[in-house]
């Protein structure tokens, strides 16, 4: 059953009381909230997601609610609760929906060490995946949103779940977090995409979330082996340029973008070297989304014989 098949009243009741069990990629999150912006955000951006039985197992029990003190009314705040406890400081009430999104990211980065988790966007086309690690401000989410709007399948705009056992990346398609100017860029680039309410003045500036395409959500249980690791960098007015990156350098950059490489120890090293071995690695700078997408569409998958030295 998909979330959109719930009536407004059923959705409200579930979110306010027993909790809504949302399947997001390999995880089931039980979410509770009685905050209107959160309920609306979920209704709008998670409409196509499967919902699960209340009696089953849930990976994360989370709640977004106002604190039980004066800050409920006076300059209101909002708390993210995991297992009824708050791992973070409260944030302004207006940011309730982004708080849910950040909280869910936190859950995965804390409790999914059966994967090697990296901070990067992942998209897929014709069975080939691109992993795009990049620091904030490099246009990673914008490029990811642009690719997804042009038919690439969204795995995630934030999180790589790489299984050391299978050597595959699991999708965890969630709304894409767009920041500041990117929101307008994507609105004009792809007027048909659904973008939720903007929250101003967050730690990252203005934030709005773009709904994941329904095909990406429906295929969320289909992991794929990685094909390319590409480090994108937006440069105003620059023409698109794809430059091969030595594997050693690409490996070191990936370590910087990992959540649990150190924690996994030897297993982390073996997983990451395995990932880099099968991928072609590039640095990529671009000035326009159309050009960038043309370059991605023309990517040739690496030949099957491994070229470890590259």
């Amino acid at each position, binding site marked *: 059953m998909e979330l959109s098949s719930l009536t407004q009243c059923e959705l409200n009741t579930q979110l306010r009381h027993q909790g809504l069990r949302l399947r997001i990629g390999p995880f089931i999150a039980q979410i509770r909230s009685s905050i209107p912006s959160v309920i609306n955000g979920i209704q709008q951006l998670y409409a196509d997601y499967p919902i699960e039985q209340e009696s089953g197992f849930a990976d994360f029990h989370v709640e977004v609610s106002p604190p039980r003190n004066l800050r409920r009314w006076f300059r209101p705040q909002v708390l993210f609760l995991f*297992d009824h406890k708050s791992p973070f400081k409260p944030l302004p009430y207006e940011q309730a929906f982004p708080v849910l999104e950040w909280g869910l*990211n*936190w859950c995965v980065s804390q409790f999914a060490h*059966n994967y090697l988790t990296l901070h990067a966007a992942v998209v897929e086309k014709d069975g080939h995946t691109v992993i795009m690690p990049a620091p904030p401000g490099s246009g990673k989410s914008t490029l990811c949103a642009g690719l997804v709007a042009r038919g690439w399948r969204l795995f995630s705009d934030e999180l790589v779940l790489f299984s050391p056992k299978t050597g595959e990346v699991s999708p965890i398609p969630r709304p894409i977090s767009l920041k500041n100017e990117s929101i307008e860029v994507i609105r004009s680039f792809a007027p048909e995409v659904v973008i939720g309410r903007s929250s101003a003045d967050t730690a990252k500036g203005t934030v709005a979330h773009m709904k994941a395409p329904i095909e990406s959500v429906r295929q969320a249980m289909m992991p794929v082996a990685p094909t390319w690791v590409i480090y994108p960098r937006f440069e105003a007015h620059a023409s698109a340029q794809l430059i091969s990156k030595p594997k050693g350098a690409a490996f070191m950059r990936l370590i910087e973008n990992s959540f*649990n490489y150190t924690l996994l*120890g030897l297993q982390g090293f073996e997983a990451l070297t395995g990932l880099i071995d099968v991928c072609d690695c590039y640095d990529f700078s671009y000035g326009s989304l159309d050009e960038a997408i043309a370059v991605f569409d023309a990517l040739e998958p690496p030949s099957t014989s491994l070229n470890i030295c590259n």
Partner: protein
Amino acid sequence: MCQARQVDLLPRLWYLLNDRDLLDELPPEPVRHLESAHAFALAHERGVRWEVECIRRVLLEIDEQIILLKGAAYVMAKLPAGRGRIFHDIDFMVPKGKLNAVESVFLRHGWRSMYADAYDQRYYRQWMHELPPLRHYKRRSVLDIHHSILPETARLYPDSRKLLAAAQPLVKGGNLKVLAPVDMVLHSATHLFHDGELESGLRDLVDLDSLLRHFSQADSFWDKLTERALEIDLIRPLFYALKYADRILGTPVPDYVMDKVQRGSPNIGMVWLMDQMFYRALKPDHVSCREGFTGIARWMLYVRSHYLRMPFRLLVPHLLHKAFVTPYKEWKLEKQAVKQPNRADVLKDVPPEN
């Protein structure tokens, strides 16, 4: 799973299930969390070993020996209680006369006191059984340096010199030691039932269970344990420890030992009251474990731990200071503080942690 996570027992559950080859028989969803927790625990153990190695090297400079306590001791002595044991501070004990020398050598090697406040500093140094905690400026690891297992002002006052004298080196001739088995049990019992905050009470009871099961394989362990408890004035905590370990976790304690430690039992009314409190507070602090009076039980045990820590003439001014002066000072500091971006916020898409 939520209850176990609340008291850091997920990795322990992984070990218990793995020992019995039961992981394959469970549904895969919870097993993934157990595996994740196990991976975390392995990294934690690696970190602890490295940290203890750093401590050992620092100590070579002053040729001083230390006695590792609690989690760090269980891990370094490779006890079953150390498997999957998660903890945040490294605790160790030195003779009181050596405190200054030991503290200053750590201050010279990158550790800093976590409390800058003069009141806190004086409170620890004058009344407590440990120095104000030290934190390494780079690795953020925290050291608790003890000279006793209970505060100077506590109702029970076990003789630290006896504990120090019986401690055993981890490696022959090395400068790292751990408490003798009986003392290790008594310290764990004292920490849980006389001194501790019960947030992770169940985890601490699981420690006791594990230590007792392991050490009681040796001959005459039980006799030594009860004799030692009488000798160093810790029969009361031992009574509680054996009673609740037996009742809650089914720890095998011989009947004659139970009879012996009855000497540590308080009167029948107190036994009833303690039952009411401990049966509630030793459950994980999770909503699914809450029943009537759980909140009150936890609060009463908190008050009790302070009452046992120090007499009222010291306790009341201390609590007043903590309730009024400290928040005021913190508020003033916060006002002055220049807001600096946290590196974690810049790097990753999560809000700042508490």
